[in-house]
C-alpha cells in the first residue's frame, strides 16, 4: 500500500485520495449507466463520459497523469 504522494510517474497534479462524499452512490450510478448496453455501446458511453468529465476537470496535467496511470495499470496486468 502506498500513500498519497509515492506512486511512480506522479507529477502530483492528480488527486489520489477520495474526493467523493458518497462514493458508493457514484460508483453504482456509473456502473448502472452501463446496464443493458452491449460492448460497443459501453465503449461509446465511456468515451462520452470521459470527454465530459475531462472538460469539467480542465486541468491538463491531471488529465495526462490520469491517462498515464490508467495505461500503466493496464500494462501491469490489472485488466
Amino acid at each position, binding site marked *: *500500500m*502506498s*500513500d*498519497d504522494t509515492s*506512486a511512480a510517474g506522479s507529477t502530483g497534479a492528480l*488527486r*489520489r*485520495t*477520495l*474526493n*467523493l462524499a458518497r*462514493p*458508493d452512490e457514484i*460508483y*453504482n450510478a*456509473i*456502473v448502472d449507466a*452501463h*446496464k443493458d*448496453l452491449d*460492448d460497443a455501446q*459501453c465503449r461509446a458511453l465511456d468515451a462520452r463520459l470521459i470527454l465530459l468529465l475531462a472538460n469539467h476537470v480542465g486541468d491538463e496535467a491531471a488529465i495526462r497523469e490520469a491517462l498515464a*496511470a490508467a495505461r500503466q*495499470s493496464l500494462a*501491469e496486468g*490489472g*485488466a
Partner: protein
Amino acid sequence: MSSYTYRHYSYRRPAELDGKAERRPVVIVGAGMAGPTLALSLAQRGVPSVILDEDDTVSLGSRSICQAKHSLEIWDRFGIASRMVEKGITWEQGEVYLGDKPIYRFNLQPEPGQKFPAFVNLQQYYVEEYLFERCLAEPAIDLRFRNKVVAVTPQSDGVTVEVETPDGRYALEADWLVACDGVRSPVRHMLGLPYPGEVFHDQFLIADIRLLSELPKERRFWFYPPFHPTNSVLLHRQADNILRVDFQLGRDADAEAEKKPENVDCRLRQMFGPEARWEHEWTSVYTFTCRMMERFLHGRVIFAGDAAHVVSPFGARGGNGAIADVDNLAWKLALVLEKAAPERLLESYCSERRAASRENILNSTRSTDFITPKFPASRAFRDATLALARDFPFARALINSGRLSVPTLHESGLDTPDGDSDPDANWRRGPAPGRAMIDAPLDGERGPWLVDRIGPDFSLLTFAERDFEFGSLPQRLTGIRVSTEGLARQRYDAQPGTTYLIRPDRYIAARWRRYDPAAIAAALRRATGNG
C-alpha cells in the same frame, strides 16, 4: 460434528389444553433472536407475552454471527451483553486482499471510548441460548417450546391463533400477534401475504471449522486469492476457536458435490496449507434473496425480522436489522397497550423500519453486485477498482466487500427537526433528530457509560452544571444531567443548556440549545404520536 451441545428445552403442557384460556396482550411467534429480544423488551415495560416456537432448541448452525454494537447495547439491558462479549470475538477492523496482497484496511469504530465494540462475533446458537435463559427466568414471559402455530384468524380488535402441541391443539387469543418466525414465515403464508423481491443465483459455501492453530481476529476478505483464484473468500473468527470460511462458488456450482467433506477439505487444504489441521463444525451451501413486505402491519398482526425483510449476508444486516426492528416496536407497542399512545403510533414502526430495510437491501445489494458482478461492464469497473487500489487510496474506498451494519437514519413524523422550535440553534455536529444516539464515557475513560443511563422510557439529556434542576418532567421522561466537560460534550456538540430528547430505542427525537420545558413537552407528545 458440532462442538456445541444443543440442549433441548422442556415442553410443558399449556394450561389452555385444560380449559384455562386467557386473552394475552402480545403473542410472539418464533423464538429466534428477534422474538425473545422483543419479549424481554416488553417485560421491562411491564407487558407480559407468550412466545410460541415449533422447535425446542436453538439455531442449528452458527448462522448470524456478527453482533453489532447497537444490538449489544439492546441486549445489555437484559444483562446478557457482557456474557456475549466475553464469549465472542471482539473485532473492529477488516482487511481486504487482492490476490495475496492486502490492499485496504477499515476500522468500523472510528470513535473509540464507547462501552461496546463495533462488532462481536458470536454464533447465533449462543445468542439464542443466553436469550432463552433470560426469558425462562422472567415471570412475565411464557416461552413455549414445541408449540406450532397452525392457523391465524385476524379479528377486528385482536388475533386468534390455533396452536398444535404434542398433547393436542388449543386456541390462543391475543390483542397483538408479532410474527418473528423467519424468512419462510408460516404466519405470512397463512395470511396469504406476498413477499416481493429479488432472487440472486450466485452460490456460496460456508465451512465452519475448528482450526488447530493461531487464528486471525479481524474480518478478512479476498478477491481472487491464490487458493480460490476465480472468486472471493470471506473469513470470520467465532467463539470456541471456530473459523467461518465463506467461498463464493458462482452460479453453476454443484451444491451437493461442493458440500461433500472431501471437496470442502480440498478447498481448505489449498487455503491453509499442507500442515494445517481442522475439524468440521457445520457446512452449508446457500444462495440468497432480498425481499421486503409492502407493509409490516396487517391489522393486529405485526411482522419483524426476516419474516418482514431479508437481505444478503454481506454487511451483517439480517440479525442486527431484526434486533433493531423489535427495539423500535417494543416501546411503541407498550405505549399503545397502556393507552398512552394512539394505535396509529405503530404506523411509524412500519414506515421507519421499512426505510431502514430499504437502506439495508440497497447496501447489501451493492456489495453483492461488487462481489458478484452481474454484467461485463460491472465486472470491468469492479476489476479496475481493484487494480487501481494499490496506488490510489480513493479506489480502496470504493472496494465494497460489505458495508457493515450501522444504525440507519430515519425520517419520521415522530421527530422534531432541528430549528423547528429553536431557529437560532447552530449545530456543527452531534446526532441530529432521526439519528441513533452515540455512547460516551461520563466520568473518565472506562465509564460509567451514557448508554447505561438510558432506561426503558424516554430520556432527556441535558448538559449542565451540578446545581441544575429538571423541575417536574412529564410522565415517562427521565432526566439525565451530563457534565459540560468531557467526551460526551464534544460528541453532542453541547454547550451549557444543550438538551437532547432520546427515544427509548436510543434515537434522537429532538434537540435544543436551551432547556425549554414547553418545547420538550411538545416534542415528547409528537414522538409518542400524541402530537
